[in-house]
């Protein structure tokens, strides 16, 4: 078997897997629709404003409601305490 045949076969398999991943994404998204609707319902019912991704500080738990000065609450030049504080940008105001 020629080397190019081997390579092209491997690329073919890879491309099929790529297509299958797209198919899998569609199936998973469809299966997750009920869970998503449940979460959306909970957000509406409880009036939630944020995702529970960063629970370590109140301004990262609820970045959309955070006081803009809260990361510097100890004094104006205070260093950031929490790791996630450095990856969660402050609330984005409307202009």
């Amino acid at each position, binding site marked *: 078997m*020629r080397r190019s045949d081997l390579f092209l076969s491997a*690329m073919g398999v890879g491309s099929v897997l790529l297509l299958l991943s797209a198919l899998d994404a569609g199936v*998973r998204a469809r299966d997750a629709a009920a869970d998503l609707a449940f979460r959306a319902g909970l957000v509406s019912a*409880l*009036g939630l*404003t944020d*995702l*529970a991704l960063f629970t370590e500080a109140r301004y990262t738990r609820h970045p959309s409601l955070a006081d803009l000065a809260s990361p510097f609450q100890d004094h104006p030049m205070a260093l950031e305490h929490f790791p996630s504080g450095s990856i969660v940008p402050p*609330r984005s105001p409307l202009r």
Partner: protein
Amino acid sequence: MIHFIQRQRYLMDYSLAAMARRPGKQAGLLAVYTAIVFLLASVMLYTQSLRREAALLLAGAPEIVLQRLIAGRQDLIPVDYVARIGRIRGVSRVRGRLWGYFYDPAVRANYTLIVPPDREIEPGTIEIGPGIARTRGLAPGDILGLRSARGEPTAFRVAALLPTESELVATDLMLVSERDFRAFFDFPAERFTDIVLSVRNPREVRNVARKLSLRLPDTRVVLREEILRTYDALFSWRQGLVFVLLAGAVLAFVIFAWDRASGLSGEERREIGILKAIGWETGDVLRMKLWEGAILSLSAFLLGYLAAYVHVFLLSAALFEPVLKGWAVLYPAFNPVPFVDGLQVATLFFFTVFPYMVATMVPVWRAAVMDPDAVMRS
């Protein structure tokens, strides 16, 4: 056409044979390249999923949240503000919210306590999010003892656990009755945490916000639009989370491509010289090297992307967990919903495959246009 395909197949055969002569180097290159594509694709898939999910979920967030500010800091809002808001045209509902944070020193975790507006919780009982249940090892019927704001031990019976499907929004939630909430935090009777408003016509929201700012100048208005923008910014590639994760990977890729573009090894130059000396044309040498770059970059893209897909959607993006978790004890255990954007995948393909191929072609072209004798001697 058949002749062209045959010619490309021979060039591909030669390129693969040439790569097989340096298996260690090629395997190393493929591993580094695949790792970079894997990281870039993982960040892309993960943030795209969270971004879409945040937009879908937070579309149901309150249209307007009204907070009271005293000396630039958020304060509890008096109950009579609900009446002072009065009848602003377009506002269909106004209600005060009771919620707050509690730091549990036993597990060093922060809980978010909420009084649910849609139903009554029986006093003395709580409903808890899956993260709290996991961390404290609680099940329905168990008793959770916490120290109240007055320092008194308070026992709550766990009436129910919020379903695991709610992890992403409710992992740290503790639903309590209004009576328990006020007693536990020693919360003033005439105060709410904040006030939420529903507006019938979405186009009226900004007008209502303007009227609120005029009527209650000591308040801050947070619109749902701002909440959605906050999350859009959090998962956008220009800042925050994605930038931190992406910056390292992009830099690694630039160094990698630059290294390839900056020159050929002596062995590769000699090989080009010999090929030219035995009659290969410059175009053939370039095509052969183009195939070499294409074989490597296509393999790395397919391997890296597929590994990233498995990592993000089958293994819940386990490698990102330490970055997202920080010092937090409660972390939502969730599988991102795969919202794969074809255009993003195409962009990733373009920006990872083509720069590398072009970068490898520059030094090859420089060597291929030189006299074979000079190339072999250099």
